[in-house]
């Protein structure tokens, strides 16, 4: 699904922030990416959600060679990726409902086709009574759940989450983790970047990647589920 071979990345003419990164994400796998602040976690995710191109090496997404992909071929790939940004990146002038509708609206689908599904999803993440609220009036946890709902509403093949529990209290962090676990159970490949090592320690078999000064190491191979959590007990 995602394959990196000796990938390097730099911003402009700056120093290399990722060096010789090689790994492969299997379909339906659950993966953690840890590392200290500034180690390159967000940069690696930026490559994966196609906001940046590698400056060297070889990278394929869903079997497509990203190095040679033209701009017009990017949107179909991006639609297969759901992203939960660290800083949420919700559109403040739109309601929670409109924010979550965005990935479907850009496909040109008529509103009546998806509106009830979106309402159902927002209810599922516990925001049934906050659908018409705009992001500035939502709490950190509520914004996080809107961001997650927006990331999963189009049923992406790959879900990337950058510090999804960084802005919420530990209890909400556990709830969000359960949500990711449920999504993984239905087949979504997930990569969660976090510096919260306790989150990773809750897993027994999920892959664990660690990044330090731009270099990636694999601490545990993929193919597991979260330990100590009941997948059926979502939120």
């Amino acid at each position, binding site marked *: 699904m995602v394959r990196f071979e000796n990938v390097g990345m730099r911003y402009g003419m700056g120093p290399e922030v990722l060096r010789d990164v090689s790994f492969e994400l299997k379909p339906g796998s659950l993966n953690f990416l840890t590392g200290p602040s500034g180690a390159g976690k967000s940069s690696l995710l930026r490559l994966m959600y*196609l*906001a940046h191109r590698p400056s060297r090496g070889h990278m394929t997404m869903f079997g497509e060679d990203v190095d040679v992909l033209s*701009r017009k071929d990017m949107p179909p790939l991006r639609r297969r990726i759901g992203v939960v940004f660290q800083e949420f990146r919700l*559109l403040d002038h739109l309601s929670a409902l409109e924010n979550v509708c*965005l990935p479907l609206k*850009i496909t040109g689908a008529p509103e009546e086709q998806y509106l009830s599904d979106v309402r159902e999803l927002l209810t599922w993440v516990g925001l049934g009574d906050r659908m018409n609220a705009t992001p500035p009036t939502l709490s950190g946890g509520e914004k996080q759940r809107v961001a997650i709902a*927006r990331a999963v509403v189009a049923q992406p093949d790959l879900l990337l989450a950058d510090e999804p529990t960084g802005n919420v209290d530990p209890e909400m962090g556990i709830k969000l983790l359960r949500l990711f676990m449920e999504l993984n159970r239905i087949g979504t490949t997930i990569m969660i970047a976090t510096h919260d090592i306790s989150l990773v320690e809750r897993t027994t078999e999920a892959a664990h990647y660690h990044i330090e000064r731009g270099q990636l190491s694999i601490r545990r191979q993929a193919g597991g589920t979260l330990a100590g959590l009941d997948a059926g007990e979502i939120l």
Partner: protein
Amino acid sequence: MTDWRTWVAAAAQRLAALQATIIPPAGGSRWPLHLVIAVMCFLASVALGITLTVSNVAEAWSADLAGVITVQVKPRPDAEMDDQMARALAIIRASPGIASADRLPPATAAELLEPWLGSVALPDDIAVPQLIDVRLVPGASPDLEALALILSDAVPGVEVDDHFRWKSRLAAFASSLQALALAALLLIMAATVAIVVFATRAAMEANRQVIEVLHLIGARDNFIAGEFQTQFLWVGLRAGAIGAGAAAAVLLFLTALAGGQGEFFLPGLGVTWETYPALLFVPLLAAAVSLATARMTALSVLGQRL
């Protein structure tokens, strides 16, 4: 009453839905943009109104002169004026393509000279040229040069004026004014394009984050450019309507003014009712120019991104 209000509310809602975009319009820069485009549309409307008016007037004046020639019989010491006139009239009436030829009564000739010589009666011993008003058969194109030659041979001191020089000057004047107005329209359009390019770039810069989010969730450039083109389409329509409306008011005022003293010097000068519907073209053009410019600018800016 309630039904009427409900209908208006529903219409307003539908209109708002048509104008709604995901990308918010850049708040602070909206009214100056409307003002500048409205001013451009005002100038364009005035230029268009003047062009159409000049065309109409020139056409009307030319039509008045078409099919009419004037023959001037100058007094000569060796010939009687009545004899000269009789011979000239006989030749003209016998020529093909002539509908009528009449001696202009001395009183009418005096009226024509009044603006230059005043209303004081001329002394009888001053010889004044006499005029023959000749009407051509509609659609006929008689050989006026041949007629002039025959007349000058038979009746010395005769001149034929087919008003060609006046008509050609009038046509040149109308063409010059139209070219000037067209140049003004083109310049105004170019300025509007530049303004919209600048405003689109500013709006895109102000919404950089929103555009990035849209890109990252898989929006195509066409979708994002569509957001900006919708915004600028409505700006063009609204500002265009304001500008054209103001221009229509000014043209009405000028017409009322020309209807007074202006008629004496330039008869027929005034904006006719047929001109006003043409002003509707201005907001539509402003909207089309704004839409196309915003779209091309947005696509060009987006094309520079990943």
